[in-house]
C-alpha cells in the first residue's frame, strides 16, 4: 500500500518534480562533491564518536539538495530547503572548537530566518498570481513561467524575500556572517561541502530561477543586485586580507566570490548571467579544493593559526600544488577556470548599460587583485616561508610525509578540473547549457582564445625558469636571521610568518574606522538584530517584575480598555 505510494511518487504523478538543464548540471556537480567529500571524510573524520550519524546527515543533505534542485513547485522546494538548514546545524555541531555551538546556532538562525522570509515570499507570490485558488493552488504552484512584473509593493517585497533566502544560503551580504564562522568552527569536509560548494549551488540556483523565471526584472532591481554583488566582492575580500586563521580567511573568500555570481546575474543580459552561473560551478570546484587542501594542511600542522604554520610545502607537496592551482583559479589568473567565468562577467557588466557600470567593473577587478594579494599572504604563511617550531618537528618526522589516498583523490580531481575547465572553457556551449534561463543568445564581445593563451603562458613560464637557471639568482645566500643577540618575545623563532602582510591597510584613514566597526561586528546583521531584539526584551522584562499588584493593574487596565473599545 504505502509501497505503491512511494512508487507513484517516484513516477511523479502529481508533477512534484521536474528538471531542466540547469538543475541537471547542478545535480551532477552536487553528486561529484558528495562523492569527493565522502572520500575525503574517510580519513578526516576517522575515529570520531558517532561518525555514522555524520554520514547519515551528509547523505540526507545530498538527497535534500537534489530535492531542492528538482522541485517542481514552491512548497516542495521550501520543505527541502528548510531541512537543509537543520542538517547544516547538525553537521556544524560535529566541530570540536570552542565556538562550534555558537556557530551552529548562528547558522541555523540566519538560514532559518530567511526560510521564513522565503515562506512569506511564496505566500505573497501565491496571493499575487492565484489568490483565489485556495490551499490547493499553493500546494501546486509551479516555479516556472510566472513572469510577475516587479511593479507593486507586494511583488517587490516578495522578490526581496526570495533574494534574501538565496543570499543567506549562498552567503552574500548582508546574510553572509555565518560563512566565516562556519569555516572556522565546523569540520573541514562540512565546510567544503556546504558553505563552499553545495550551498552556493543551491543559493545561486534559486536566485537564478527566481530572477529569470518567476519575476520580470526591472533596471532598478538589476542595479540593486549589482550593487549588492560589488559590495560583497570588495568588502569580504578586504576582511579576508586581515584574517589570521586559515579557514576563516578562506571563508571570507567564499563570501567574496558570491559577489561575482550576484553581479553576473544582476547584469540581466545573457552573457552576464551565463558568466554568473558558470562562476558558480567554478567557484564550488576551486573553493572546495581550497578548503579540503587547507584542512589537510591544518590537520598536518595541528593548528589553523597562520602565525604557527609555514614551510609545510616540504611535508605535503601534493597538497601545496593543488592549493596553488586552486588559489590561482580563485584569483582569476588565466588560464584557470576562475578567469574564464570572471571574463564573461566583466563583459556582462560592460554591456549591461547600467549607468554605474564602471563602478561595478572596478569593484570586480579590484576584488580579483585583492584576492590574489590575500592568497600570496596565505601561501607564504602556510606553505612557503620559514617553518615554525611546531612545523619543524613535523618535518623532522619522516613518517608523516605521505598524503593519505582518500585526501589526495579529491584534491587531484578538483585541481585537475580547475585547469581543465579553464583551458577548454571556450569550448563549452554556454548558450545551450543555460538556454532556458537566458532570454537571448550569448554573444561575447571580448576575444579570448584559451588554448593559444595557455601555450603562450606556458612558454613564458618556461623562458622565465630558464632565465632563473641561467642567471645569478641561484647564488642567493641563505643565513640565519641576526638581531644583535636580542631575544624577541613576540616572535621567538625569529621568522616572518606573513600574517601581518597587509596590516598597513588597517591603519589607512577611512579604512581604519571601517575595520574598527567591522571588528565590533557592527556590520553583522545577526549581531545587530540580536541587540535590537534584546533591547525590546529588556524593556518588556522590566515590566515583569513579579509584583502582584502591578500585574493586577495591567489586568484591570486591560479590562477597562477592552470595555471602552467595545462600547
Amino acid at each position, binding site marked *: 500500500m504505502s509501497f505503491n505510494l512511494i512508487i507513484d511518487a517516484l513516477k511523479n504523478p502529481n508533477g512534484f518534480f521536474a528538471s531542466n538543464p540547469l538543475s541537471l548540471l547542478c545535480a551532477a556537480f552536487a553528486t561529484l562533491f558528495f562523492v569527493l567529500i565522502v572520500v575525503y571524510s574517510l580519513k578526516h573524520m576517522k575515529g570520531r*564518536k558517532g561518525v555514522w550519524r555524520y554520514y547519515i546527515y551528509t547523505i540526507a543533505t545530498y538527497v535534500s539538495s537534489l530535492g531542492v534542485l528538482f522541485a517542481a513547485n514552491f512548497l516542495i522546494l*521550501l*520543505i527541502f*530547503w*528548510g*531541512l537543509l*538548514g*537543520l542538517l547544516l546545524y547538525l553537521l556544524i*555541531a560535529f566541530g570540536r572548537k*570552542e565556538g*562550534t*555551538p*555558537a556557530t*551552529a*546556532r548562528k547558522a*541555523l*538562525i540566519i538560514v*532559518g*530566518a530567511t*526560510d*521564513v*522570509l522565503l*515562506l*512569506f515570499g511564496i*505566500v*505573497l507570490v*501565491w*496571493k499575487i498570481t492565484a*489568490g483565489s485558488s485556495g*490551499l490547493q493552488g*499553493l500546494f501546486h504552484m509551479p516555479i516556472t513561467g510566472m513572469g510577475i512584473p516587479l511593479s507593486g509593493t*507586494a511583488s517587490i517585497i516578495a522578490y526581496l524575500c526570495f533574494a534574501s533566502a538565496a543570499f543567506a544560503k549562498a552567503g552574500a551580504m548582508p546574510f553572509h556572517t555565518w560563512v566565516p564562522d562556519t569555516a572556522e568552527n565546523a569540520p573541514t569536509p562540512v565546510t567544503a561541502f556546504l558553505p563552499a560548494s553545495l550551498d552556493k549551488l543551491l543559493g545561486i540556483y534559486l536566485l537564478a530561477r527566481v530572477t529569470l523565471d518567476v519575476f520580470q526584472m526591472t533596471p532598478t532591481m538589476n542595479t540593486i543586485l549589482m550593487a549588492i554583488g560589488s559590495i560583497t566582492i570588495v568588502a569580504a575580500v578586504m576582511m579576508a586580507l586581515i584574517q589570521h586563521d586559515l579557514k576563516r580567511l578562506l571563508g571570507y573568500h567564499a563570501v567574496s566570490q558570491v559577489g561575482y555570481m550576484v553581479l553576473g546575474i544582476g547584469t540581466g543580459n545573457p552573457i552576464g548571467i551565463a558568466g554568473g552561473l558558470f562562476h558558480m560551478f567554478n567557484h564550488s570546484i576551486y573553493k572546495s579544493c581550497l578548503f579540503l587542501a587547507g584542512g589537510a594542511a591544518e590537520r598536518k600542522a595541528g593548528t589553523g593559526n597562520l602565525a604557527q604554520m609555514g614551510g609545510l610545502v616540504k611535508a605535503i607537496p601534493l597538497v601545496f600544488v593543488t592549493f596553488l592551482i586552486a588559489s590561482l583559479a580563485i584569483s582569476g589568473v588565466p588560464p584557470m577556470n576562475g578567469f574564464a567565468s570572471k571574463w564573461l562577467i566583466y563583459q556582462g557588466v560592460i554591456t549591461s548599460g547600467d549607468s554605474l557600470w564602471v563602478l561595478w567593473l572596478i569593484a570586480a577587478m579590484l576584488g580579483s587583485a585583492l584576492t590574489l594579494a590575500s592568497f600570496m599572504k596565505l601561501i607564504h604563511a602556510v606553505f612557503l616561508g620559514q617553518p615554525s617550531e611546531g612545523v619543524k618537528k613535523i618535518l623532522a618526522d619522516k613518517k608523516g610525509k605521505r598524503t593519505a589516498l582518500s585526501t589526495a583523490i579529491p584534491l587531484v580531481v578538483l585541481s585537475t578540473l580547475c585547469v581543465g575547465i579553464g583551458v577548454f572553457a571556450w569550448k563549452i556551449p554556454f548558450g545551450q547549457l543555460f538556454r532556458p534561463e537566458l532570454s537571448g543568445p550569448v554573444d561575447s564581445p571580448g576575444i579570448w582564445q584559451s588554448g593559444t593563451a595557455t601555450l603562450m603562458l606556458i612558454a613564458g613560464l618556461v623562458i622565465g625558469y630558464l632565465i632563473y637557471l641561467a642567471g645569478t639568482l641561484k647564488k642567493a645566500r641563505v643565513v640565519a636571521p641576526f638581531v644583535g643577540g636580542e631575544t624577541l618575545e613576540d616572535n621567538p623563532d625569529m621568522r616572518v610568518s606573513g600574517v601581518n602582510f597587509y596590516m598597513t591597510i588597517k591603519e589607512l584613514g577611512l579604512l581604519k574606522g571601517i575595520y574598527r566597526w567591522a571588528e565590533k561586528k557592527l556590520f553583522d546583521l545577526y549581531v545587530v538584530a*540580536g541587540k535590537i*531584539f*534584546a533591547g*525590546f*526584551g*529588556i524593556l*518588556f*522584562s522590566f515590566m*515583569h517584575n*513579579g509584583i*502582584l499588584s*502591578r*500585574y*493586577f493593574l*495591567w*489586568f484591570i*487596565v*486591560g*479590562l477597562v480598555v*477592552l*470595555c471602552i*473599545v*467595545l*462600547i
Partner: protein
Amino acid sequence: MISAGIVPLFVAIPLAGAFLIALFKKIKGIPDIFGVFASGSMFILSILFLLKMEITQRIVYNIGNWGGFNEVLGKIVGIQLVIDGLTIFMLLIVNFVAFIVAVYSVNYMTRYTQKWQFYCLFLLMLAGMNGVLITGDLFNLFVFVEIASLASYALVAFGTEKRELEASFKYAVMGGVASLLILMGVVFLYSYTGTLNMANMAEIMSGSEQPALIYLVFGLFLTGFGLKAAMVPFHAWLPDAHPSAPAPISAMLSGVLIKTLGVYAIARVFFTIFGFPHQISIILMTLGAMSMGVGALVALRQWDMKRLLAYSSISQIGYIMLGLGIGTPLGILGALFHLFNHSIFKSLLFLDSGAVEYAAGTRDLKEMGGLSRKLPVTSGSTLAGAMSLAGIPPFAGFWSKLIIIIAAVEANHMKLAAWAVLMSIVTIAYILKVTRFAFLGALKDRFVNIKEVPVLMRISLVLLALICIFGGLLLIPEARAAFLEPAVRVLISGMGGGV
C-alpha cells in the same frame, strides 16, 4: 451508532479515579496504575468517538433526564452534555497529552513525596478540563473551569518551596478574579436571555437587536477567559506558575490547560453563542499580535529553561488567537492545527526540561552543556520539539504557521502576516538557545556520570517527538477531513448570526 449514555464517563472516570486513589493511597503502585489507566481509557474513549461519529453529528445527553421539560416549558432547564466536532478534537488532544504525562510521571514523580496526591489532583484537573469541553451549559462550564483551576493552583504549589508557593498564590489570586469576571458575565447573560443553555442562548442572541449590556459581557468574558489563556496583558501569572509546577504538570498547564480553559472557552462562547461579531475579530487579532511579540521577545532573554518555555507559550497562544481572529475557514483551520501542534511540542519540551532536571539536576541553561552525549533520547526529542516550535519545514509546527500566515495574507492582513513572520524568526532564535546551550558543546565535568532517564519517560518523549516530526501528515485530505474539518465546521457554522 454511539450511545449518548457514555458521554458523562469523560467526567465520571477521572473523578472516580481521583476518589479511589485517595482511598487506596496506602497500597504501593495503585496511584500510578489508576492515574495511567484513567487517562488512558479517556484517550481510547475519545478515539472511539472520533471513529464512530458522523462529521456533522451532534450527540446530546441530558443529565438527570431533565430534557423532558423542553416540551413543557419550551426551553431547556437541565444541564446538557454536548459532543460535536470541536469537542472531540479537543478531547483527543487533552486526553492524549494527559495519558502521556501520566505515563511519564510514573518515573518522574519519584522525585517528590506523596505521589498519590499528585495523581489525585491530576485526575481532578483532567475531570475539570473534560467537563469544560463536553458541557453545553454556560454556568456548568464555569463550574468545571473552577474545578480545573483549583486543582491547578494546588499542583503549581506541589513542591511547597518558597517559589512554588509564591507563584501559586499569584496564580490563585489572578485566576480567582478572572473566575469572578466570568461568573459576572454568565450572570448578565442569564439575566438577559433567561437561559443557561448555550444553544438556546445562541438562538436568542441571533434574533433581536442587542443591548449595550452585551458589550460589557464581551469585555468580561474576554478578560476572564483571556487570563486563563494567558493573553497579553492578562498573562503575567503564567511565567511564574508554569515553571514552578513539576515538569509533567507544566506540560499539562502549557500544553492543554490554557487552551481548554482559555482558547476553547473563548472560541465556544464567541463563535457559538455570539456568532463572532466583527469587533471580537479585531480584538483577538490585536491581542494575538501583542502576545506573539511580548512572549517571544521576553523568552529571548530567559536562562531558566522552563521559564523560557513558559514565555514561549504566551507567544504561541498569540498565533492561535491570531488565526481565530482572522475568522476565515483557513484561519480557523490554522489556529486549531496550531493548537494541536502546540499542545504536542510544548508538552514535549516541558517533559524534556523535566528529563534534563531529572538527569542533570539543573534548569539553568548556563550551567548545562554537551548533554547530547549523555542524554541522546532527551536531546533528540528536544530537537524535534524545538524544530516544530521554530516552524522549520517539514516539522509539524511549520505547517500550522504556514496556514496562519497564508490565512492572514488571504484576508489582506499583510502587516499581521509580516509580524507573524518576524516573530517566527525570533522564535527560532530563542528556542535554539535551549538546544545550543543545553546539548551542544563540551560536556562539563560535573555531568560525566549522569545517565539517560528511565524507560517510561523515554517512551513518552519519543512518542511526542514522532508526532512533532510527522504531524504535518494530518493535512493530507483524508486525515484532515476526519480530524480537523469537523472542528472547523463547528466554529464556522457558529458564525454569521449574532451582534
